[in-house]
């Protein structure tokens, strides 16, 4: 909303600076900045065109003789519409316009003593079609800058959706008056209009009030300068006097109006719901297909306008219009909003209807409009009809001072509160120590409860006037922040282990899944910005690959990254951590003996990467995980595995399949893991502690229980087992551990391939008895027992001699 200060002054006397006004508006709820209507330019004067001749050599140029009341100037202009008698503004030689300096120049031999200007030349319009034509009665030789009001302050105000009442000069004036105590004024004409039969019928509940006025014999022409300038300053383009008057009052009063060409209306005028498929070409020359939810103004033959949104082309005011029907109406906010949203048309009119109109002011606006039309376009009023279908019933609110104190935390003076509310035109009296307010029609959508009045009082008083205090937070609501701690631990583990934290969008493309031959996730954005960001991902993998590709563009192949993020499923979400390591191990330097070997020769490998993941689980106190086979198609079939805890898969680890790496054009020495951290239910009350998630395991894990430290020293034995090559070491080691209760610790120290089908696994084993020192012989027989036990499962097991 743009409010020129001169327009504001029509309704209040302002005894302070524009900056002060803007600042106080800001602090009372209207976000306001000041812009200026251009700036004062020296050398602009008003002139009359006395003669127009075509340029002898340049047909696109006209040579004008212009007169400023004392002197005659010869000026060349490219404007084709200039005619003798027009009054325009001349920028004399020496004038500095925003875009250029005016010098004495010649156009193909014809000298030009200045330039006739348009609004574009002043930087006030993007593109002007013609010179800016002044009123016929403009005095000559007058300072052009002053005439146009260049440099005037315009308040640019952002109005929050609840403050429809401030979408007008009048509304802003009311605020300023309430803040500063400036006196309000208004010029309401006294007309004695006759309510006569104008046939209008309202056939829908979505029209609250419809007032139509018939005015005949008007003369459609350009509006006078002061009207045009105010519209321009408010950001609108002048069109003709009738349309300008409706726009003028829309800005000034906040009440949208519409004028129909009466002679284009066939038969009766009705306000009704449209029929499905009904069509109308609106003022913006677009054909609109209507639905039965739209409210229209129609005659017997056709739709004339979309109620409260936009007029139709068929009945618009043209230069030939002689008789008009003026509409001042109020429509249902939701109905207007639905039509405006569905058709994608937002107008100054629909914007205001959606936010509520002062229905009680309709007659005043009507009279102001009629008065302006009669004085600027002539004609006479034939009659009017005012169908006030939903009369405004003001409600009453009682506000106690205790409530004010409870909400704001401070006792306020009742007189002060009463004064503030009245200054906002909310009629308020003090009854038995409480405030009794009547909700005015201009605030009917926004104010209905005592809390709404408290806000009014607080904001006009100023929020800064309330001193901070500190609530006593109850220790009763204290809980351990285990979830937050869990995620913090996770994040810090990967950061300290050399992994960089990345954040990718959680939406991705269908192509990503198609490329991998994976099913596209079920949740999709219907009104996406980019098709490539329309699928809610069910894996963090998508983002990690994107990060690798992004960094490859700058030649960075070696990455170790992680991302903790949501993934999306039909009825729940999962927070996962994705970890990716690609290219060379980035661990600074590697020293062998006393020589430096730069580590950039060391590539990531599956067991190093496994260590990162395994240690993460261990850092959370989780040790009971199993390595099982992974079936992820995008992983290397032999260099990949799942991690299971308590029989549930919590994630996978693996090397990227070379085919996948190729598809995404990235480094093939790329390791990736994805772990399910936490289940996020969408249904209220469903537990997030589901099995198969690391957070659940972390929460449910048991504390370690202390066992006595052994009293007797261990006996160490190195044992090398010969097994078939397909034996899994991890499994074998588990079995070995369980084979004797005397095994205290063991450690694999050698794996050696003996032949095509045999390998040796060598362990350093420590035996301990809780009761005594073990002798060599005892240990020997323990080894024999172990061997016998293991042979039950590993038939061909032998000891390597």
């Amino acid at each position, binding site marked *: 909303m743009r409010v020129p200060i001169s327009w504001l002054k029509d309704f209040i006397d302002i005894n302070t600076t524009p900056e002060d006004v803007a600042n106080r508006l800001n602090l009372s709820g209207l976000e306001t900045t000041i812009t200026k209507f251009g700036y004062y330019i020296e050398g602009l004067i008003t002139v009359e065109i006395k003669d127009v001749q075509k340029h002898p050599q340049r047909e696109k140029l006209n040579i004008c003789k212009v007169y400023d009341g004392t002197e005659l100037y010869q000026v060349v202009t490219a404007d084709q519409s200039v005619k003798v008698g027009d009054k325009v503004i001349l920028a004399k030689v020496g004038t500095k316009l925003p875009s250029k300096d005016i010098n004495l120049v010649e156009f193909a031999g014809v000298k030009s003593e200045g330039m006739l200007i348009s609004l574009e030349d002043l930087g006030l319009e993007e593109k002007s079609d013609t010179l800016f034509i002044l009123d016929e009665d403009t005095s000559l030789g007058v300072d052009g800058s002053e005439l146009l009001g260049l440099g005037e302050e315009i308040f640019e105000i952002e109005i929050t959706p609840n403050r429809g009442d401030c979408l007008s000069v009048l509304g802003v004036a009311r605020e300023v008056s309430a803040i500063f105590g400036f006196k309000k004024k208004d010029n309401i004409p006294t007309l004695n209009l006759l309510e006569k039969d104008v046939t209008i019928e309202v056939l829908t509940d979505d029209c609250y009030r419809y007032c139509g006025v018939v005015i005949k014999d008007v003369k459609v022409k350009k509006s006078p300068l002061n009207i045009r300038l105010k519209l321009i300053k408010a950001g609108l383009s002048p069109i003709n006097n009738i349309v300008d008057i409706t726009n003028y009052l829309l800005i000034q009063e906040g009440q949208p109006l519409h004028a129909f060409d009466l002679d284009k209306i066939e038969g009766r005028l009705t306000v009704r719901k449209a029929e499905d498929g009904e069509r109308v070409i609106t003022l913006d020359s677009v054909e609109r297909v209507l639905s039965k939810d739209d409210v229209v103004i129609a005659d017997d033959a056709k739709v004339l306008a979309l109620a409260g949104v936009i007029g139709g082309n068929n009945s618009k005011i043209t230069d030939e219009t002689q008789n008009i029907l003026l509409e001042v109406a109020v429509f249902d906010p939701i109905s207007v909003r639905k039509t405006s949203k569905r058709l994608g048309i937002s107008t100054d009119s629909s914007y205001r209807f959606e936010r509520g109109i002062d229905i009680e002011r309709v007659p005043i606006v009507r009279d102001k409009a009629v008065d302006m039309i009669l004085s600027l376009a002539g004609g006479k009023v034939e009659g009017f009809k005012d169908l006030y279908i939903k009369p405004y019933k003001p409600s009453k609110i009682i506000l106690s001072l205790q409530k004010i104190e409870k909400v704001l935390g401070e006792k306020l003076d009742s007189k002060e509160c009463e004064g503030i509310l009245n200054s906002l035109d909310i009629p308020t009296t003090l009854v038995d120590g409480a405030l009794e307010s009547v909700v005015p029609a201009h605030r009917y959508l926004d104010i209905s409860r005592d809390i709404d009045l408290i806000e009014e009082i607080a904001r006009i008083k100023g929020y800064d006037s309330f001193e901070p205090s500190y609530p006593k937070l109850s220790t009763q609501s204290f809980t351990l922040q285990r979830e937050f701690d869990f995620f913090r631990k996770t994040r810090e583990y990967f950061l300290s282990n050399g992994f960089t934290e990345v954040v990718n969008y959680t*939406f991705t493309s269908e192509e990503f899944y198609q490329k991998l031959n994976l099913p596209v996730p079920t949740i999709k954005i219907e009104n996406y910005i980019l098709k490539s960001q329309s699928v809610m991902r069910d894996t963090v993998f998508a983002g990690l690959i994107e990060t690798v590709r992004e960094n490859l563009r700058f030649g960075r192949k070696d990455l170790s990254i992680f991302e903790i993020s949501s993934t*999306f499923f039909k009825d729940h979400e999962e927070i996962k951590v994705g970890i990716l390591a690609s290219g060379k191990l980035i661990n600074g330097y590697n020293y062998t003996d006393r020589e*430096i070997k730069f580590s950039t020769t060391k590539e990531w490998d599956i067991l190093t990467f496994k260590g990162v993941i395994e240690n993460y689980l261990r850092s959370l106190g989780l040790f009971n995980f199993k390595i099982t086979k992974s079936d992820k198609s995008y992983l290397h079939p032999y260099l990949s595995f799942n991690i299971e805890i308590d029989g549930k898969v919590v994630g996978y680890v693996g090397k990227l399949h070379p085919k996948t790496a190729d598809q995404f054009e990235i480094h093939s020495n790329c390791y990736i893991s994805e772990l399910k951290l936490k289940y996020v239910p969408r249904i209220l009350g469903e537990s997030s502690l589901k099995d198969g998630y690391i957070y659940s395991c972390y929460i449910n894990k048991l504390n370690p229980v202390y066992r006595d430290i052994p009293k007797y020293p261990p006996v160490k034995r190195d044992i090398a087992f010969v097994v078939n090559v397909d034996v899994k070491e991890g499994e074998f080691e588990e079995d070995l551990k369980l084979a004797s209760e005397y095994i205290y610790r063991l450690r694999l120290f050698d794996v050696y391939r003996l032949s095509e089908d045999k390998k040796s696994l060598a362990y350093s084993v420590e035996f301990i008895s809780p009761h005594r020192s073990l002798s060599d012989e005892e240990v020997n027989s323990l080894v024999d027992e172990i061997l016998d036990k293991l042979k039950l499962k590993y038939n061909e097991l032998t000891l390597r001699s």
Partner: protein
Amino acid sequence: MDIKAQLLQVKTDFESEVESVDNLQSLNEVKVKYLGKKGIITSVLKSLGSLSPEERREVGLIANKIKDFIEETLKTKEENLKTRELEEKLRKEYLDVTLPHSWHQIGYSHPVIATLYEITSIFISMGFSVESGPEVELEDYNFTMLNIPPHHPARDMQDTFYLNNGMVLRTHTSPVQIRTMLTKKPPISMVAPGRVYRKDLDPTHSPMFHQIEGLVVDKDISFRDLKGVLKIFLEAIFGKDIPIRFRPSYFPFTEPSAEVDIGCTVCKGVGCKVCKGTGWLEILGCGMVDPEVFKAVNIDPQEYSGFAFGLGIERIAMLKYQITDIRLLFNNDMRFLSQFEGIG
């Protein structure tokens, strides 16, 4: 030569011999030569038998003194040599410790997540709990129960992504307020950090970003309490002297509502590009919980009052690290991220 003179000669010999020793091995040889089973001193002591008792006592005394002397000297010499040898060994181990280390590097924190954790921690230390909710949310929780009915112009304040399952991507963390109040009884003091989505994309808007929501509900919570808590928080983040101002604003779920500005951290309030010349930076939105919201979650607005606030994490991170384009935060370009090593 007389045996006494002989002994003195032995001492003199020993002294010069030990003097020239420069390693432990030679020292041991000297030790054996004088004190060994067949050593000089031993044989002198053995020969004492041929002397008269008086002589024996006198000579024995001298011999033992010399023996003690030799033992003492050898011991000292041995310690000296050992110290020297250790020093020598250590000297050989010399390494230029200004060389770069050979442990792995640490990872870089993401500035947004680091800021999110920092802010959350501030509230945890004030006694707030941390709550969370799904990102795919019911329209009811995201809008309607927050007093944003369907077809209300306030829905325009947040351009919404609609999903094919009839739900929305939450446009703010405020639905977590609803979820928390539906499952917990007051007193409540909670924050909800998380990802949110709006259909917006330019240098200052990203379709996905992060917010943190705060909510305090109890029997006597006032607007002044809201000012107090936010003052503590803003001073914790931006420093004790940061100017703070509260401006009336509008959010459907709070009444009265406010927007909070801090003095521009770049120009210190003088006016610059970042604050668009105003000297102030809009930092968060807040207000007293609207009674309609309480009604929607079955909390009696006559008995309880509360305040809520919400702020964008990206905005704070961008101010803190003077980042000019929000899109940098989601490109994951290492040339960008590597600038944020060790921030938290």
